[in-house]
């Protein structure tokens, strides 16, 4: 029965594609914008309650340019989007035309055949304008499957008022982090740092700080279980055990944001995506109270992961042409300048950084060099799969269920199972 539906969808898509191609030929390159029609469904994964309003507004602006197109904006929680998209894409029904795909998901979706290649379509314009780092995750096996929308990295967010009360400066090293947290505890009675315990993405800067990494794709080696990896697990365990940081095994995002916004903790490690939400907190009614600094260095290095989001088009979309145009519109210099101004998100286009909105945003200006020096992950289909096994062991370490050595080993073992033939 399912095959029947898929076949029908396939035929319909082919027919649509064929007719679309036909009209393309007629009008040639000077295709007037009024010609696009139909519905474009977009799954946005931005934070609900802060970022989503702006993205919805921008997305609906597409309808003004193309009055015959109906943009259906759907907000999907970031944590669920990857699975939801996979379910829908595989079933062949219910998938959106355009998805905001996290950088690590993009090669995975492309590998599974869920994304439409974008080379030579209207979605990719001025390719050379994109930051090289941002464009890297959109390529898979020589084809481009997505267009970079925002780029990000991580830093330490701190409460300037609490820091002034305790008489401390942002910590540059993890050793400083502990003394800073202790002073804050002594002076204000509050915990220094909130460390997310349910999402190992927040563990990466500690791993990089000890000189470790999850995997080394060039030599096809799993590196998470070497000495540096074990050390990094030890570092985060010590932060929690010593009371420097507090953590949770569930609802980490909500607890982190409410603790920081209400002034229950003085610091959190986070990225530009959290800025809009943070500024809604009662501690940050005066926006100047939010301080941002680079993540503290470990014993070997200082580094934060490079992340971001791309916009990708579902291969089974029934409205490919409008989807391509929509992706182009959403990643245009104007849209990126608008999100930089209103949400402090970092553009992926070089030219957007010279726009007034980006220049005026302190946060964009702070994160720009951070992103440039951030650690790039290998864009292999498995990159997005590396977090599930790591999450389990990371949480186990923080809740005292396992030792750093065992956790590193267990993570390495599951990586070798995942990455067949790797050392």
């Amino acid at each position: 029965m399912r095959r029947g539906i898929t076949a029908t969808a396939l035929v319909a898509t082919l027919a649509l594609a064929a007719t679309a191609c036909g009209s393309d030929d007629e009008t040639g390159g000077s295709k007037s914008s009024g010609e696009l029609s139909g519905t474009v469904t977009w799954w946005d994964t931005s934070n609900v309650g802060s970022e989503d309003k702006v993205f919805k507004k921008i997305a609906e602006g597409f309808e003004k340019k193309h009055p015959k197109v109906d943009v259906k904006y759907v907000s999907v929680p970031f944590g669920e989007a990857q699975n939801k998209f996979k379910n829908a894409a595989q079933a062949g029904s219910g998938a959106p035309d355009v998805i905001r795909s996290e950088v690590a998901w993009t090669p995975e979706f492309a590998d599974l055949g869920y994304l439409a290649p974008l080379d030579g379509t209207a979605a990719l314009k001025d390719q050379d304008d994109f930051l090289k780092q941002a464009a890297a995750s959109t390529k898979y096996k020589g084809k481009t499957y997505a267009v970079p929308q925002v780029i990000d990295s991580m830093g330490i967010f701190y409460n300037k008022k609490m820091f002034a009360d305790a008489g401390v400066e942002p910590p540059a090293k993890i050793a400083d982090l502990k003394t800073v947290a202790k002073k804050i505890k002594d002076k204000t009675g509050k915990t220094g740092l909130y460390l997310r315990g349910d999402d190992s993405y927040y563990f990466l800067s500690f791993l990089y700080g000890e000189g470790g990494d999850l995997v080394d794709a060039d030599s096809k080696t799993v590196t998470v279980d070497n000495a540096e990896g074990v050390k990094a697990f030890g570092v985060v365990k010590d932060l929690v055990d010593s009371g420097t940081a507090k953590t949770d095994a569930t609802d980490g995002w909500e607890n982190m944001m409410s603790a920081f916004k209400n002034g229950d903790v003085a610091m959190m490690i986070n990225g530009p995506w959290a800025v809009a939400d943070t500024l809604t907190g009662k501690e940050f009614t005066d926006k100047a109270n939010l301080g941002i600094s680079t993540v503290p260095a470990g014993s070997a290095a200082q580094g934060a992961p490079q992340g971001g989001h791309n916009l990708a088009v579902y291969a089974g979309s029934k409205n490919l042409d409008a989807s391509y145009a929509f992706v182009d519109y959403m990643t245009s210099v104007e849209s990126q300048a608008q999100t930089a101004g209103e949400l402090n998100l970092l553009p992926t286009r070089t030219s957007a950084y010279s726009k007034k909105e980006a220049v005026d945003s302190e946060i964009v200006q702070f994160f720009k060099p951070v992103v440039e020096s951030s650690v790039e992950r290998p864009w292999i289909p498995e990159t997005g799969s590396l977090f599930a096994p790591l999450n389990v062991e990371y949480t186990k370490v923080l809740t005292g269920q396992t030792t750093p050595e065992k956790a590193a080993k267990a993570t390495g073992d599951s990586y070798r199972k995942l990455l067949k033939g790797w050392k």
Partner: protein
Amino acid sequence: MAVHTSQSVAKAAGDDVARGRSRGTGKSAPPSKLRRALSVHWYAWTMVAPVVLVIGVIIGYPLVRGIWLSLTDADERNVARSIGVNKMPATYEFVGLDNYADALTGNQFLGTLGWTLVWTVSCVTITFCLGMALANILNRRIAGRSAYRMALILPWAIPGFVSVFAWRFLYNENNGLLNKILGGAGIDGIPWLNDPAWAKFSVIAVNVWLGVPFMMVALLGGLQSIPSEQYEAAEMDGATAWQRFRHVTLPGLRPVSTTVVLLSTIWTFNMFPVIFLLTRGGPGEATQILVTQAYKFSFEISPRDFAQSSTWGVLILVLLMLFAMVYRRVLRTQGDNW
């Protein structure tokens, strides 16, 4: 020899045709028995056919497919997909019983099974005892009895996911009501869902809270069907309250309680929503039961491991069937008519 055989076949065929014409004269052979059964019961078969068909489609097909997948190395990347212009054929292969060998020799399945058994036994025991106590209390004539009954059925009336989410808010370590109350009394907050041992306690507590109403209602029904003459006779004989409970109430409840314990065991063993919505199997994998882990294989990890997930699914089915068989046999030896 060959000639002879072919002759006899031809003859038999001829016989058959002849018999077909002169109905009723031939001797009763198996085919005609079937035919007779059909002619007598055709109406019943026709009426049953849609149900058989629907069950075959919605239970039989997924079951057979699940068993088949558990014998292959199917995952997200090698099953057939056709998305728009991209068409990919299935490339997974038959691997025999490898998945079962892996599951039964590795410690993940056995570890998860261990906690699943602890979870099932403790949930069913506590739920049954509490349900029994409440049913006995509410079986007396006390003021506001129907109000109590309504209040106690409430957890059952609320959709499961709603109450589980409510509990999740209550359990929140920093902002939850439970820790606020403890904090008010000067007690340090408890890491309800963040500490493995507390998380196990918390999920059991929620499941008991959800399961008690069913137990109570079922046992209350059982209590009301025990004739009051038996209690009167026991009282005449000078039996104490405990003796009356032990020798009148418990035997009288036996038919009801054996059924609810069996049902409750199966439900608890596969109680997906409580674990999944409360802890997602965490912290780490401390509260992961077999079904939530099977779900994780199939929907949460990537690439999704359909083969391993089906293997666990089939093993869960086998375990529950074994349990039901043993349970039935034990009851039968004790004289119950099952």
